[in-house]
């Protein structure tokens, strides 16, 4: 048994100790500021290649990732808005300069291996993508956390996984791991089967609402699918009107119906009148207080009632 653990430990350690044998480039020793300064200078000089993409592909055409650009929108020459219809590769990667003469000059690079700051990388994308969807980007948590566009978006591909309903949740949960786990709780929105997506409620480019929600308030966001709870109702339940998340956790819960706790305990965290609601319920399933829907056996219109006699949310 010990030897199995030892073998396992050695295996794990040797895997972890492996280091990348990445392509060493002459600009690897530049720090982020030095790299940026050099790229700014190159960008201002504007020494674009005379033949556009053909110059770049002379060397890079054997790289499948590079060539995958032509399968997506950014690689379409016939699309007048595409970089390929303009400065081609250099529209995003900056002027070639003398990069092709010995490969000693850096180009603008993207993704997790790029030393260029995310904000600077993002200026490339924002040069074209400046529409209402990105209006709140600069004050968004993603921008303040220095997330680069390329951290989520893949341009060199037939389809960007962040733009596909079947893979956008994977894109978000690669960082938002707690929310990934929440999807698998006893109750959750149908996210793990991609029937719903994170971006149904949240705007990944930021919004002018709390938690980057797509609607002005938490409740407005919930009402966009649960319009029956919008009301207004003749008889309201105050915490329901104030904030759906007073009782529900939209990411998932170990309780049914995304509730923070189950009834009767949840209800008794707010209701202690001189009457039945204060009663201790020692066991579930024994009487109308702890059986079936508990408090909701009688107060079934918990989200609000429109019955003239519905003040106790019973009708």
């Amino acid at each position, binding site marked *: 048994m010990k030897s199995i653990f030892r073998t396992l430990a050695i295996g794990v350690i040797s*895997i972890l100790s492996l280091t990348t044998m990445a392509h060493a480039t002459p600009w690897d020793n530049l720090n982020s500021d030095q790299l940026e300064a050099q790229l700014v200078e190159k*960008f201002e000089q*504007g020494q674009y290649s005379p033949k*556009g993409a053909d110059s770049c*592909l002379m060397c890079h*055409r054997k790289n499948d990732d590079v060539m995958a650009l*032509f*399968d997506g929108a950014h*690689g379409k*020459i*016939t*699309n007048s808005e595409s970089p*390929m219809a*303009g*400065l081609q590769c250099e529209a995003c990667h900056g002027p070639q300069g003398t990069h092709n003469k010995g490969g000693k000059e850096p180009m603008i690079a993207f993704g997790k291996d790029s030393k260029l700051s995310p904000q600077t990388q993002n200026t490339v994308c924002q*040069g074209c993508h400046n*529409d*209402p969807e990105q*209006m*709140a980007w*600069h*004050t968004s948590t993603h921008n*303040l*956390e*220095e997330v680069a566009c390329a951290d989520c978006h893949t341009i060199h591909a037939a389809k960007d996984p962040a733009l596909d*309903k079947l893979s956008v949740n994977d894109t978000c949960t690669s960082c938002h791991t707690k929310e*990934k*786990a929440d999807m698998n*709780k*006893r109750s959750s929105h149908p996210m793990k*089967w991609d029937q719903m997506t994170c971006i149904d409620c949240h705007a990944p480019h930021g919004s002018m609402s709390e938690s980057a929600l797509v609607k002005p*308030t938490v409740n407005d966001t919930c009402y*966009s699918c649960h*319009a029956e709870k919008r*009301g207004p109702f*003749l008889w309201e339940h105050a915490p329901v*009107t104030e*904030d759906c998340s*007073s009782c529900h956790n939209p990411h998932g819960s*170990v309780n*049914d119906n995304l509730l923070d706790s*189950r009834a009767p305990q949840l209800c008794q*965290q707010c209701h*202690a*009148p001189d009457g039945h609601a*204060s009663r*201790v319920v020692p*066991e*579930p*399933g024994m009487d*109308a207080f702890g059986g*079936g829907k508990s408090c909701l056996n009688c107060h*079934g*219109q918990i989200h609000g*009632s*429109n019955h*003239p*006699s519905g003040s106790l949310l*019973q*009708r």
Partner: protein
Amino acid sequence: MSFKRNMITLAMAVAATPAMAANFGVNQANTESVNTERYECKRCTNTTGYTGEVSVSAGYNDVSDVHAGNALGTGKDGGIGAVSGDVKYQGDSGYQAQIQAHQLGMDNGFARLSGGKAGLYQFNLDYDAIKTYQAGDVESPLWHNNGMLTPSDTLNVFDLGLRREKVGLGFDYGQDFYGAFVNYSQEAKTGTKSSSLVSPSPINFGQPIDATTKQFDAGIHFSGQNWLTELSYFGSVYENHIDHLSLPYANDVYSATPDNQAHQVSLSGQYNINRTFMNGRIVTGRMIQDDNLIQMTGNPLQSWDGQVDTLDARYALTSMLTNRLRLGGSVDYSKRDNQSSSAEFAQYNFNSLTGAFRQNVPQDIERNTYKVNASYRIASGYRLQAGYDRKEVERTYSDREQTHDDSLWMKFNVRAFDNFNFNIKAQHANRSGSEYEANDLTSSEDNSLMRKYYLADRTRNAVELRMNHTPTNWLSLDVTTRYAKDEYDDTQIGLTESEDYGYDINLNMAFNQHIDGYVFAGQQWINSNQVGSQGFARPDWAADIEDEFVNLGLGASYSGLMQDKLTLGVDYLFSNSVSDTYVITDGTSPYGDYFSYNHSASLYADYAMNEQMALKITYRYERYFDTDAANVGVNDIPGMITLGDINHNYNAHQVMLSFTYKLR
């Protein structure tokens, strides 16, 4: 004195370091020497025409409980079939179109069709179907027909579930500096939901659902070099086609969900000067509900004119003062002004009129939120962020009319190492407010020691640690651990404290072009304590709620078999949700079983017969179990009727054979 001097030094430092912004946007490019006419793109692999794939699937579902339909895409037992695909068309002159379909023919599926000319216009047509199963073979002695719930000795057996079917149509048009959009969608909701009424004893029953939500959005936007503005409208109309419910011996015992509508007009904008960005928005809205009220003695109104006016406004700013220092902040205002009419209505005591009248109390809510934040790069790869948030809420007719939440937070990010990233987050928050009063307008008067948790004084402390390790370019490991504690120090009755802690580990591997895999594991614990009083006096009972969640998953795929034509894959997920409650009176007693677990597995083999055609066989297994001791037989509790034992315990299997045809 020294503080002043430090501020002066800081101000000088800020002034002396010009915030130069690198901007590599193509619109900033120096294109003097560019002649794109010489671009030939000989090495480009430009594709016009159709690309993508279409697949047809047929298979078999072995389902004993329709609840399995949530995981398997359909609750049908027996033969199943579906069509999926993702096809793009690219024309020579810039026209493009795309259609994506997923599992059409199953309960859950969607289709998206879009097309247009880039930079000019785009249309889209969407279809979405989502069916959520809650329980199958639910029993009820009540039979619904046109608003009448008729009791019968023969049990009505049905499924609890909701089907949403949504069709949407959209059109976008845009030129250089302006654009406009129009979207319309209509969603039909059908099914049966679990409901309950009192007449005079409680009866759980299946309430039919038949409703439509129509959504209409439109907007226009303009942009310039450093600004952007949008004016938009959002409208939603909800129509319920199920009327009030009656019992043969009690008319209109349960009111229908009323029709309602909501409208919002929003004006938003963004402006930037060098590295200072600001954005703002003002949204004015109205929610209307004026359905006819049930006519009865003691109701003075034919219909109620429910109307809530809302106003939401925001201004936010962020500025890179130097290459190291960023400052930002925001102000939010949100008002819910309930303009609905108020009247006195007779209230029932069980089934007979007592003569007690009550007035409805339309509640107004007003919120102000202020946030400031700063981010400072201490050195390359080391960044410190800190902020202060304050949220003020005022509400009428409440036990506590004013509350304010103050929160101080700090984050420290380390990106200085090639293979390691560290993040630490900490938060200290406090809620306080005006005097807490029990209020007989909002509810029957509560014990004076009760502090409702969403209004009560609260101290929150939270910390999160996150580590990301990438030892090689094919392996990445994320480890996150977090702890949070809420203390309600002034609460003697109600929720008194709650702690939430846990961890998750995610390991992703892309070993080479043929092998990839993942493993994740996580646990979370949420423990909360609450106190009650049966005697309407001092605390005399308590409840400890101990929630635990476990989540495990792993998967791998290998694509290097039979000259790379065969891909084999496996995915497995386990999750276990437990909520144990202990009721403490004279002794401690457990409050019954309440847990669920599932094992979900899938195995697949994908064989490429040639460049165009592929066959895939998939086997999926779902083991699901849940229990809630509150769910008992229809007549097990004297004096009430339940929907029976709706707990789940099943094994489900699915085998699917898919044929995929690739275009180009």
